[in-house]
């Protein structure tokens, strides 16, 4: 079935999806290598879930094609379905069934047969679900629901996993644990396609794609994206300063010619200044804060490039 071991695990070629006159996804192309964690970012409604649905064979693309392990997502949908795991952005298990029954059900519909119990035991162990097997899925907390959903999606040992906002609405500890588990999966050679809104999660991905208004704006490793010349204009530099409880004059800095993208991350002030503003001038403007040269964060990358795309769209 699967063609070559070294071809891309997921491949999107000029994927386009139109709903009536509305274009939800426009000409999106990318490849994901086996064992890679690919992070897919973009504002709500930008088309992330629609891309996943096309790749999983749930939607037939209006144009272009998607391939999973070399198989066409729409023409070989049946084989594709056996090789992928999918966790939709909405919790989609049966709340009135217990953890055990949910697993048993998904195992049956994937036709695991004699391997059902062996596989159920394996995923229960991997995701530490043992204390909850007799509990109704509807009575689990958000983090445990996500674990159960992941367990169900992993029963048939898919080589490619699609996770649509798997950490939306779960607490930080559960989020951390989920990511640890995703690394474990990637280590075993499973290819992961994850959508998220969290920048720290984006940092954890091997490669990222950023989709904005149905188009793919950016594609690359986190470091590649931060080094993008469009993020840091020729003469400008990124600076940061420790705050140590000092209230920074954000408004004053923001109004200053030559300074932009003033943000506070926890205890650090972060900004972009061009050649009109020198480092000593910065310190003076900021009331004595010590600045050092920094690098753009992923958030800077997305904010600046979104703004750029907006400008280009307004004045073609």
């Amino acid at each position, binding site marked *: 079935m699967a063609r070559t071991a070294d071809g891309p695990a997921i491949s999107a070629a000029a994927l386009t999806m139109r709903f009536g006159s509305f274009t939800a996804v426009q000409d999106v192309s990318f490849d994901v290598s086996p064992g890679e964690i690919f992070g897919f970012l973009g504002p709500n409604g930008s088309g992330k879930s629609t891309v996943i649905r096309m790749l*999983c*064979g*749930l939607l037939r693309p209006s144009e272009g094609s998607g391939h999973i392990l070399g198989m066409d997502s729409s023409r070989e949908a*049946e084989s594709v*379905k*056996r090789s*992928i795991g*999918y966790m*939709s952005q*909405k*919790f*989609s*298990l*049966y*709340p*009135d*069934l217990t953890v055990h*029954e949910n697993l*048993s*059900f*998904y*195992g*049956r*519909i*994937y*036709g695991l047969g004699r391997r059902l119990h062996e596989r159920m035991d394996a995923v229960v162990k991997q995701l530490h679900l043992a204390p909850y097997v007799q509990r109704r899925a509807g009575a689990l907390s958000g983090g445990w629901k996500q674990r159960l959903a992941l367990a169900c999606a992993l029963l048939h040992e898919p080589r490619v996993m699609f996770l649509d906002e798997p950490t939306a609405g779960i607490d930080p500890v559960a989020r951390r644990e989920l990511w640890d588990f995703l690394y474990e999966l990637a280590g075993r050679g499973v290819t992961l396609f994850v959508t998220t809104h969290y920048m720290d999660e984006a940092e954890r991905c091997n490669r990222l794609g950023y989709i904005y208004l149905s188009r793919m704006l950016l594609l690359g490793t986190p470091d590649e994206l931060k080094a993008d010349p469009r993020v840091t204009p020729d003469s400008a530099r990124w600076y940061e300063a420790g705050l140590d409880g000092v209230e920074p004059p954000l408004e004053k800095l923001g109004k200053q010619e030559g300074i932009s993208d003033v943000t506070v991350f926890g205890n650090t002030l972060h900004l972009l200044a061009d050649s009109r503003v020198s480092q000593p001038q910065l310190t003076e403007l900021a009331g004595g804060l010590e600045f050092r040269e920094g690098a753009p964060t992923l958030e800077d990358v997305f904010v600046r490039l979104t703004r750029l795309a907006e400008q280009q769209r307004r004045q073609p």
Partner: protein
Amino acid sequence: MMRGLGGIIYKEFIQITRNPATLVITLLIPIIQLIIFGYAIDTEVRNVRTQVLDLDNTPQSREFLNRFRATGLYDIRGYVASASELESAIVSGQASVGIQIPSGYGRELSGKRPAEILVLIDGSNNTIASQTMSTAQTLGIRMSIEQLSGSSPERSLLIDVRPRFLFNPALRSANFFVPGLVGVILFLVTMLLTSFAIVSEKELGTMEQLAVSPVSRGGLMLGKILPYLLLGMIQMNVVLFFAQFIFKVEIAGSLPLLELLALVFVFSSLGLGLIISTIAKTQLQAMLMSFMILLPSILLSGFIFPRESMPLPIYWISALLPVTYFVEILRGVILRSAGMEALWDEALILTCMGLLLLAIATVRFRKTVG
């Protein structure tokens, strides 16, 4: 073709036994409906409230009123003093019938001119109206003949028409309604539960999860049909049992034949349930659509009103409803002990309808899932 069927059935049965609503809908509500409908839909007319204006007040007029009373149809509740009072008793709903006996009735009985009795009838309930009218007229004719021939009531008639009822000898309306009710209940519940079972997966988002799994459409559809088919058959037997128990409606014909034909019928309601589930996005929508089909099925299937007396366009609509044929089958087997040789045409029509509806459901299912 049927990939995933076992898994779906496994899950469906867990959900059925776990969800109290399903069990209430299938077992408790039908029994309540049976009791309510069975007692409420009663077309036997008795004890109609009657007021009397007796302006004559002679032994003859009192004898006349006694004859009215003896029919059991008129319940003389009281006497009024004037014609306007009599009319207002009917207008206000206090009485459905008003009998006015003119003064001089006793005298005119033996005179040349006919004695005129006025019977005021509230026409707003046509069943009561027609029965009280025809009985009053019959009574008038009988008493006229007796008066003319001077004979005793027993030997007064030259022609005596004596009807004999072949089935349902006591003419109990329960015998007429209960078999139809069994059909209507079976229809509603199987249609509603199948559409709910599918629409709830859409609402939960699990339908999308099923669509990325290797479950085939055939497996999913059949997995959603078979559990409710079984539930429907169990339910029919429970309702039949209670019908015998409460209303003494015995099954005159063959029970296995009835079960077989019910099975044929249920495919139509399951097919309709599937079609509804391809249109409805929420369980509320599914419920409203089911009731849109249910309403004509109750009113036009012959369950309440005889099809023979329907206007032609309505009659043709009733011919399109699966319930029409099943009610016919139920009455046939339960009351008339009819066999396959009498019911083959209804059975054939139901088979065709079931196949057609399932075919439409299959085509539509393909479009909406996945």
